[in-house]
């Protein structure tokens, strides 16, 4: 019963909260959609923390999603032991980078008075959650070898079953508690996403790549009459 709450009810609740609150906030308080950059107040420590953190975590997140969305391709990718080794080592290195960089960012917020002044309670909550989540991830990849493989046969079927509205939790309930915590942590982050500055993750300005440099706005673009 408890497992059902954790692995069925909670993920659904998290996703519904994220979508509903995210949309609500976007429609009613678009002003608040900001990355809240603090680079203007401190940029030396940030240069060592921000870029490595973002790149590492994006790649890790990408790998998780990749295996989830196209498990077949991921499966054949890791079928070769050498490739699995390479992926595991890369993942481990990325996780270590992310953890180090995030630690640096936390240290920066703690020790720079100017940056501390612009850090809200939600920011601290988010930082703690992220730190725990990345530490758990690193722990899992260190002590439960070949996660790239067993992830495919445990978490992926579970999440796929959730997506199909035919919850199937047998593959995850027997996993060690560290792994379970990491899974639930992921959904917890999804749940808090719309209430924190994490919203900036869904407004990546890719349209910049194909829009013209100049942006001219008109109340009503006059149609030329000559």
């Amino acid at each position: 019963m408890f497992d059902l709450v954790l692995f069925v009810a909670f993920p659904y609740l998290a996703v519904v909260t994220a979508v509903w609150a995210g949309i609500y906030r976007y429609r009613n308080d678009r002003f608040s959609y900001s990355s809240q950059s603090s680079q203007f107040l401190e940029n030396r420590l940030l240069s060592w923390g921000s870029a490595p953190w973002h790149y590492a975590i994006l790649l890790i997140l990408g790998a998780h999603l990749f295996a989830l969305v196209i498990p077949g391709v991921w499966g054949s990718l890791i079928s070769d032991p050498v490739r699995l080794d390479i992926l595991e080592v890369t993942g481990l290195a990325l996780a270590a980078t992310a953890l180090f960089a995030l630690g640096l960012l936390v240290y920066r917020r703690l020790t720079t008075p100017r940056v501390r002044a612009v850090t809200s309670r939600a920011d601290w909550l988010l930082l703690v959650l992220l730190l725990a989540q990345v530490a758990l991830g690193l722990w899992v990849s260190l002590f439960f070898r070949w996660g790239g493989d067993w992830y495919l046969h445990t978490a992926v079927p579970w999440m796929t079953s959730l997506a199909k509205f035919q919850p199937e939790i047998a593959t995850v309930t027997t996993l060690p508690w560290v792994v379970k915590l990491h899974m639930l942590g992921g959904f917890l982050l999804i749940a808090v996403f719309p209430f924190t500055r994490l919203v900036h993750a869904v407004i990546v300005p890719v349209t910049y790549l194909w829009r013209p440099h100049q942006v001219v706005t008109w109340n009503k673009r006059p149609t030329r009459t000559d």
Partner: protein
Amino acid sequence: MDIRAQVSMVFHLDKCIGCHTCSVACKNIWTDREGTEYQWWNNVETKPGTGYPTRWEDQEEYRGGWKLDGDDLKLNLQSKIGTLGNIFYNRRLPTINDYYEPWTYDYDHLFTAPEGDDQPTARPVSLITGEFMEIESGPNWDDDLGGSPVYAANDPNLEGLSDEERSQMEEIQRVVFFYLPRICNHCLNPSCVAACPAAALQKRGEDGIVLVNQNQCRAWRMCISGCPYKKVYYNWSSGKSEKCILCFPRLESGQPPACFHSCVGRIRYLGVLLYDADRIEEVAKSPDADLVEAQRGIIQDPFDPDVIGSARAGGVPEAMLTAARQSPVYKFVKEWQLALPLHPEFRTLPMLYYVPPMLPVLAKVRDGKYDVADSDAEGLTPLLTSLESARMPLRYLASLFSAGNEDVLTDVYRKLIAVRVYKRGETVGDVTPEEAREALIMGNMTAGEAEAIFRLTALPSVEERFVVPPLGREAAVEEQEGDTYTHKREAGFGTRTGPARRW
């Protein structure tokens, strides 16, 4: 031809007395909130000096504006891919240290201090952290050449000057400076707009005002680096970029911007220019020496039937065209060619123009006596500066106002001198008619023109200085909201939530 209207500006530097009234007027209206205390959308710098933020003109460091790369015009900052790649950390972003840390004083202590032997003091308190701080620098720390060995000596515009010219500027009897008031130039080719990946910065088609859409800004910070004039500021509290809005809510109700209205020296002029939007890129690609001329060329004659026809066809309202015909800016920039863009080599086509300063008469100490030197050189009376012996090297001014082209500045100064000589002949009478005529010939102008320049410089009425076009707010509301009735007697932003961080 695609004729559009631009609300444009002229600052007459000879008239600026450096009183900072403009800056304070602006601050009181727009930037007295948390996160904006350090922002001076209007600031007045002493030149030579490093300015605000420090050395903003140094694009080796800040990478603002555009650069010519062969035949291509590219953002000096980075490519579009580069923008997304550097979004987590922008190497070219100035930090608060390049401006100053805003502070207040612990005034309360003056009243609450326990009785003691010493007078209590009010210590400075940081407006960011709320902690006590030591003040190391502040806005206009180098006002009137204060600390010039540190500030004036590091002015990027001095780079092209010879050692002789430099030491000449420092000679105590000749020490010279002038004020440079700056606001956003509301450029025709704004690199702040081009650098923003979220398209939060926009140029309004109807009047050319450049704005940051506060609901669309995501704090990616590229505009701040992109603007070579450093006229976009980061609100560290709300996490949004902010900039001069040319007081558009005031313009909407027919008033000039606050800095214009309050200007004590009456140095500011506001009016409409018509320009050909099809030629922006071509003009921005001109070689350095031709930039001023090319920029004059893009401005169109509001009396020319072809121009009027094209403007009408493009939807420019009749009232805008009328305003363009009365524009004092058109006279200074195009008709008399007296006003020049600041740093045209940034290639943003700034729409704020400056009449360069004449500066006081040249003097030297000779045989222990303070003497007005070389004043006979052009057969002029000592009170009239002769160009060749001007105290401020032409090269320095050319570095500011003409991308290094000294001929452009020579032409401007010949005209300014001509007006002075001509009017002095009329009012004081110690200039002979021949001398006056000769000055007019050198300045390439008629007596009538000299008279008109004199009038608009020295005696203009408020209506002559500010020709504010109707901005058509009703039409805008009708287009955007459909219902003018609910918005009657309103001006401005149409938003009722404060610009502060809430989540």
